[in-house]
């Protein structure tokens, strides 16, 4: 039986005030802009996935997770496992904003000697939790951590970010079987459901739907949210925390390339950065107005 007596001793309520929400949204916006400049300087790397995940990272690092940027190995921290390592640039931006390392390091992405390796490597940068890139092994490691957490009656939670394309890896489902059997309710899997992968849309390459039923049949509590709405995501995580019978899978419907109009929904932007000059400027202009949908409040 799982140990249900563990209380979140260091956890603050997740309820989000309008004022806080506004601040988080501006943060996500600034992070997207930094992401573009970072990728332009790196001259290689992935654009679409990281743009789509900016809101979720903002919510995790600046509202949901218990963590200490000055003490990345803090025993009581929540664990954020990134399984789809190629989307790490947005995690680097979030970590820079949170104060894990100086912002100027963002200019060194993928360069020789940089702690910001092309794919996340825990040996290079404290706070990353795991090394990833080859897909599918993050969920298993998250499950291993969650199991340890319950075993040792630890208050921390495990969040595992996975892409939808990587759900084709058999290992993911092996991890789900284990998580379901052991009722790892301290573990929340967040699926970046942006419907694209390198070669095309997920439903063309290897259809995943009906995804909800798949996870449910593995013993998961499945929730849905709009991945580009910070409020919706935070509320969904709150609901996930309320469930103590099962691990939760949050299927976050995200828009790939969110905020840059010419990248949105386009799988060809999966694995390349914007070019310096015009393309970069166009991306920035699009971001600052979210394609005309919102009014820019800065710059």
């Amino acid at each position, binding site marked *: 039986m799982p140990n249900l007596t563990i209380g979140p001793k260091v956890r603050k309520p997740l309820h989000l005030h309008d004022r806080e929400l506004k601040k988080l949204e501006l943060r996500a916006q600034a992070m997207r802009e930094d992401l573009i400049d970072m990728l332009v300087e790196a001259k*290689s790397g992935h654009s679409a996935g990281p743009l789509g995940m900016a809101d979720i990272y903002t919510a995790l690092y600046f509202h949901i997770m218990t963590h200490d940027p000055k003490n990345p190995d803090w025993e009581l921290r929540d664990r954020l496992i990134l399984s789809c390592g190629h989307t790490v640039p947005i995690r680097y931006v979030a970590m820079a904003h949170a104060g894990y390392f100086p912002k*100027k390091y*963002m200019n060194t992405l993928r360069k020789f*000697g*940089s702690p910001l390796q092309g*794919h996340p490597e825990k040996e290079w940068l404290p706070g990353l939790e795991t090394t990833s890139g*080859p897909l599918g092994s993050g969920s298993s490691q998250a499950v291993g951590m969650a199991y340890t957490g319950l075993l040792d009656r630890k208050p921390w939670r495990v969040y595992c970010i996975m892409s939808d394309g990587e759900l084709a890896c058999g290992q993911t489902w092996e991890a789900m079987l284990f998580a379901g059997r052991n009722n790892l309710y301290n573990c929340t899997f967040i699926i970046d459901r942006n419907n694209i992968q390198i070669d095309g849309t997920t439903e063309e390459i290897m259809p995943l739907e009906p995804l909800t039923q798949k996870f449910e049949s593995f013993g998961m509590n499945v929730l849905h949210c709009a991945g580009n709405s910070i409020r919706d995501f935070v509320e969904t995580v709150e609901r996930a925390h309320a469930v103590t019978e099962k691990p939760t899978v949050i299927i976050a419907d995200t828009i790939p390339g969110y905020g840059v109009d010419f990248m949105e929904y386009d799988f060809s932007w999966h694995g390349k950065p914007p070019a310096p000059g015009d393309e970069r400027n166009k991306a920035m202009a699009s971001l600052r107005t979210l394609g005309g949908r919102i009014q820019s409040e800065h710059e």
Partner: protein
Amino acid sequence: MAKANQQKGINKEMFLARDLFDDKKLKQVPTRNGYGEGLVDAGIANKNIMVLCADLTESTRTQAFKDAFPERFVQMGVSEQSLASIAAGMAISGKVPFISSYAAFSPGRNWEQIRTTVALQNSNVKIAGAHAGLSVGPDGATHQMTEDIAIMRTMPNMTICVPCDYQETKKATLTAAKFKGPFYLRFTREKSPAFTTEATPFKLGRAETFRFGTDVTIFAAGPLLYEALVAAENLSKEHGIEARVINAHSIKPFDVKALITAAKETGAIVTVEEAQVNGGLAGVVAETLTLTTPVPMERVGVQDRFGQSGDPREVQEALGVTAPFIAMAVARVLDRKAGKPVSAIPMHVTAAFELETKMKKQIFEDAIKRAPKKWKR
């Protein structure tokens, strides 16, 4: 001694590119292009050729095959383990499947599936490991597959080929298509010198002498063979050392005869590869030499460590696999051949380490200096 043994310089019978040492004229083409073109030719010749791809159609260059034979192309999604075994099932049913992914994932991830369902069953599956070696560059250590030669060559029934350039990769792909049995073909991402031609001989299991020499023999596999030729040319010009350079594309079966002959005639061997020296080409050569004709040997390659992100050329240099390091290894092996004392750790290893430390600091700090103002607060 036979006449050939005393020859020096580039072997004319290998029909290497005319502008071999002309940086500006020598074409640079990724080896993976040779795989893509070879697949289409193989597909025309044999209707049973199938291509299975794990969500990397464009970068493994299987798009052309997909366009030419859409019904014989199978998209697997990100599932390398069943990629290997589904291919085995097809092979048992009479097809000749090529499975394409990055070497880090296939054979990196699906090694056991390959072991049981391909090698042990002797199924006619061709494993194409793209993006092998350090030259994947910025993607970093997770994608820089350097252990593949070692893990594949211990597998019985497996044939392994590491072509040196675009043309040779094309030839190797066609050879793999005709060959009956498990076959691992290793190639790379980056552009590399296209220094062989259509006329250059290529035969599985045969190591060709690209350059004659009498003082030492360099066995190289993959695009770094070009670096070996450059090193040999410089050694000849600057120090009068004549290095024989041999194209060891066939890791398995290995041309034992060529190695023994080289050991007997030149008395010193250097291996060059963009893979772990432990168990890689260096492993084959060391094992064979010890069992037949022990002579001093040095290993240029990845020295029991992982790679890292960076420009492909920077990573190759910092890990000590380029021409200057090959020359250092040659100098050391010649000292050993002459019975002179040598340092405990080879200079080509320590020099690379020093360069890496310097580069790490310099490139990282340069990038920080160029950071936009908004990030400097």
